[in-house]
Structure formats: C-alpha cells, structure tokens
C-alpha cells in the first residue's frame, strides 16, 4: 500500500499515480489505484476513461458492503481502479469510523500493489491515509508554494503520527499545541516537541526521537525544467534533515514534458505509449526505485500506523 501525496494541488499526483500504476501492472503485478482525493477525484481522467458508475462513495455511504465490488476495470491489463467519491456533500470529511472501515478494506484488497492518490491539504483524513500506507510518497515541484505546502504536510504528518501513538494527556496537549500554527509554546519543529517532552519524561523523548528517525517518506521532484531544478531534491533532503529532523528518501525527479499533458488531452496514458521520452524513462526509474523499497519492506517489515 503506497500513498502519493504532497500537500499542494496540481503538482501531478494523480498523473504520476496513474503512470506508476501502469508501470507496476506492466511488470506483471496486480495493481489497484484508489482515488482517495475525496472531493476532487479525477484519477479516472488520468487513465483516459469515463467516470465509472461505481465509486468509493458507494462504499463510504454503505450502498456497497464490499470494497472489492467498486473496483472497476481501467482498460489496462492488471490495473483496477476505485474511483473517487463524487458527492458534493462533505465527502472530504468522512467520519472517523468510515475512514477506519475504508482503510481496513483497502488493506484487504486482492492486489500486489495498492496506490492511493491523496487529496491536497493536510486534513486528518489525508494524513491518516498517508500514515497508514507502507510507503508514503511526497511530490514536490520546483516552486516555493509547493515546498511550503510539502514542509507543512511533512510536519503535520509527523505530529499526527505522534498524536496517534501518544495516549497520555499532558503530552497530547503539547502535540496539539504544535499543530497550531502560532502556538504559544513556540513549537516550530519536531525537535521542539522532543525537547519539551524529553524534559518532562526523558524516555518518552527518546521514543519520540526514534519515531522521528524511522519516519522516512519518499520524495519525488516533478516538473523539472532545468538542471538547477534537478538539484532541488538533494537540497530539500538537506534542509528537511537539518530543520525538521525528517530524513527523506529521494526516488528521483521527473522532467517536465509536453507529452504529459498532451496524453491527458488525448485521453491516453503516457506509459502506455511505447515511445521512449525523458519523462517515461524517469517514471520507469522512479517505479523501479519504489519496487526496491517494496522488496526491502518484505524482508524487513515496516512499522506503520495501524488505525
């Protein structure tokens, strides 16, 4: 189960999810794409198909009991799709119990790879889907707004993780304080929380520190147009490590290419075209990197949030 997120909209989450899905399917895996962008679903468009009749809404609204029943054929061998919720009414705020039920059933889907296309923003739903996945991919594009959102996303995700794992009141309050942008305890980074908590309870501080170092989201730099843009990945890794203490794992970058949006317009999937282009090569590279991470997961196992 792999989540693709990144805080900001319009950075290519859905497109990359769709194309990575095609990569995995073409290497013989059973893949299900889940459009978890509640309220802004358009993964079907990235796959070049019409809005399927069955969607995640049917499951969330309990019109369908089994999540398997809303998996539709994407038209590509080995690739199934769970289309996103199309309700206008507050589907971005599904109930907590619904979220648990959905996550539980996503995990039970019959597939080798499940790719979740997350919505933008840092709502608890988005974060929880991200944290519950075995691998979480954060996509950035070389723009200040994207980085601003990504850092916020990463920070929020880690705080949310702490919040799930913590159960004692005074510490929960510190974490909740940290989630407020201008909290009066001046908590701005995970370091600040760890320091504050460590003063009250050193063992707990150590535990938090261990959680921080095992929190390793993957990073993809998308829409790279220049060699300078391509250097952004390592720089972000460095900045993130120094400031937030979060160690990212860089999967690679993907060039900006006109063939990407052209493919969407002609309602085809880029990775299904057999033309080799810089973009397709890059996507294949990222897919292989992910496969490597998945293999090491199978060997080592990996703790993730169990909701």
């Amino acid at each position, binding site marked *: 189960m792999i989540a693709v997120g990144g805080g900001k909209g319009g950075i290519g989450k859905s497109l990359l999810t769709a194309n990575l899905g095609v990569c995995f399917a073409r290497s013989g895996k059973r893949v299900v794409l889940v459009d978890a962008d509640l309220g802004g679903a358009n993964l079907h468009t990235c796959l070049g198909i019409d809005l399927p009749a069955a969607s995640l809404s049917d499951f969330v609204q309990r019109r369908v009991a089994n999540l398997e029943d809303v998996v539709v054929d994407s038209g590509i061998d080995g690739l199934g799709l769970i289309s996103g919720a199309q309700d206008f009414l507050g589907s971005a705020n599904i109930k907590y119990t619904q979220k648990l039920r959905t996550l539980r059933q996503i995990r039970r889907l019959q597939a080798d790879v499940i790719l979740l296309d997350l919505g933008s923003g840092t709502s608890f739903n988005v974060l929880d889907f991200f944290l519950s996945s075995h691998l979480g991919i954060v996509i950035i594009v070389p723009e200040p707004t994207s*980085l601003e959102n990504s850092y916020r996303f990463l920070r929020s995700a880690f705080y949310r993780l702490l919040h799930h794992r913590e159960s004692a009141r005074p510490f929960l309050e510190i974490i909740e304080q940290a989630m407020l942008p201008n909290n009066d305890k001046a908590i701005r980074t995970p370091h600040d929380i760890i320091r504050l908590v460590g*003063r009250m309870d050193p063992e707990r501080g150590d535990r938090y*520190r261990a959680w921080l170092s095992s929190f390793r989201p993957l990073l993809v730099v998308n829409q790279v147009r220049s060699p300078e843009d391509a250097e952004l990945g390592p720089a*972000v890794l460095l900045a993130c490590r*120094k400031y937030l203490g979060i160690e990212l794992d860089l999967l690679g970058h993907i060039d900006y290419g006109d063939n990407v949006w052209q493919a969407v317009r002609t309602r085809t999937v880029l990775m299904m075209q057999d033309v080799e282009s810089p973009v397709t090569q890059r996507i294949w590279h990222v897919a292989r990197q992910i496969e490597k991470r998945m293999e090491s997961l199978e060997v080592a196992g990996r703790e993730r949030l169990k909701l």
Partner: protein
Amino acid sequence: MKDFREQNYYELLEVTVHASQQEIEDSYRQARRAFASDSVATYALFSPEELVLLRRRIEEAYRVLTDAERRRLYDRELSRLDSTQWPDGETPADTKQQEQRADEQRQQQEQEPDNEDQPRLPLVESKPPPPADEVAEVDPVVTEPAEPVESEPVESEPVESEPVESEPVESESAEPESAEPKSGEPKSGEPETVVLESTKPEPVGPESVAPPAGPALPRVEKTESGPATDAPSAGEAASTRQEEQLPPLPRIDDDTPIDGELLRRVRLARGLELERIAEITKISIYYLRNLEIEDFTNLPARVYVRGYLKQLCSILELDASRIVDAYLARLDAGGGREGEG
C-alpha cells in the same frame, strides 16, 4: 538527528570525523547552495534569522575543519566531551584515550552504584582559560543556555491519561545507537551527564551543558495508574451508539444565557463528541473543552476564539450571529469559571 543549533561542526557539514579535505569541500559547497538566501529548498522552513545563523555556523565549521591546525584543536576539544556525542561511537581521539576514558567511567559508576537518588553531578561550566586565540575558534557549539525551562511540572492531574503500560512499546524501532563505551551502564534513561569526567577537573566545552539540566520531574502516569476513565479513544465507540438516545435540544430564548454550558448542551443534543468536532474543525480539543467550561485564561487570542465559535456554530447548527458576539461579550467581561471541570 539533532537540532542544527546543537550539532557539532562535523554533524553540521554531515561528514565523518575522518572526512578528507575534499569531502569537506564538497559537503560545504552543497550546504552553501541549499541554504543560500535565494534557495527554494529552504522557503517557508527556516526563518531568515535561522538561515543566517545556520549559514554562519556552516561557514565556521568549514573554516575550522579545513584548517589542519584548528581542526586538530577542535578534535581535541570534542574528544573531551561525552563520546556518545558521536553517532557511531567513534571520536577523533585515538583509541587509547578512549579506552582510558571508558575505564574512568566504569570506575566512576562503581563509586556511585546508585546515582538515581543522588543529586545530578554539577556540570562543569567554567573552563580554565585556554590561550586567548584558541577560545574564539575552538568554542565548539552554540548550545542553548541550560536554564530550567518553564515546562510546567505536570500537575498530577486526575487520571485522564491511560496507564503507560498499555502503550504500544515500539522498542524494536528504537534507534540502534551504538553504545559501546557505556555497555556496563544500567539501562534506565541514565542522564548523559554521568559520562562526564567529573573525577578529574578537565576543562569541559560548553557542549556538555546540552543535556537537559532541569530537575528530574516526577513521572505522572506511572504514579497514577488507575483505570482510564475518559480515554479519548472512547469517543469513537460512543459515536456509534449516539443515535440511540440524545438529550433534547435546549431552547434558546432572548434571555437564555449564551455560555459554555449552552454550547455543551447543544453539542450533546447533536450527539457530537468533542473529539469529533476537533477532527472536523481542526480546533484543538483542549480549546474546545475550555470554551465549554469557560476557562477563559486558557484560550487563544480573542480573534481566534471568534473563529472557533463561528466554526462551532456551523457544526452545531446554531445561529452564529446570535451566539458569537454574546459569548465574546461574556469573555470580555472576564466571567468564566476558571479551571473548573
């Protein structure tokens, strides 16, 4: 991973203590680019002041580590510090010296078999003046002053917190910090300061002040391990049985006092847990509760309270124009039942 303010020069440049000149050069150049003032990577992460500080420290690190003589002095200074400062347990000091120090530690621990109850070793803060020109350069790390921070000593609150034993202990995920030199140590979150060589009055760099020096605080959740009466997670279970029977919706007339109690009663009538509202609105449950119990001293600035109230009204299906100002007036009047639950 440490805050960059607490990192030594090697950690700042992310090189090993054995790094060659070339590795230091490369690392420095990369850091310089990443933390340049026009770098996109740092946007919205570091404040301008932090960036200036970080750049200054990186420059310092580079200047010292690329100067053989200054690096040697710095290494010597570092090696006097706690060897656990080194992520891989190695120090630039030669191994003989290390073993010697390990011996000293062991001795020291034998002398103090139970330092649990003893007052912390005083930290040696005053160092004998080294040659004046050394001081400026070798001064290893800008650490935070070890002032006891205001962290309120967690008043033993009635048992809201779950007993700590029930927590998932993820011990296997703990960072494999190599603990070669202190293998004989009892594993009980021993304060790092013990490792300092207090037996011989060696000059100790300011980095030794880094471990939190505040008094050890009582561990609340260990002493209070009653049944979890109101665990937050219970809210979820409750939300499924909320349809069964809800209290009636309170009537709001012109003379109904608009107060926290009213908010609470409406919420209960709507069958909503505080947790649920916190989840939807992203308002801290702490503040939501304080709104209800009118603990006005523990609410954020008025402008935020106004926003909270508006959100709350929309969820509780209350007329915001009627509630928000009336509640704020109450807040301005300074009423409220401080701290009462």
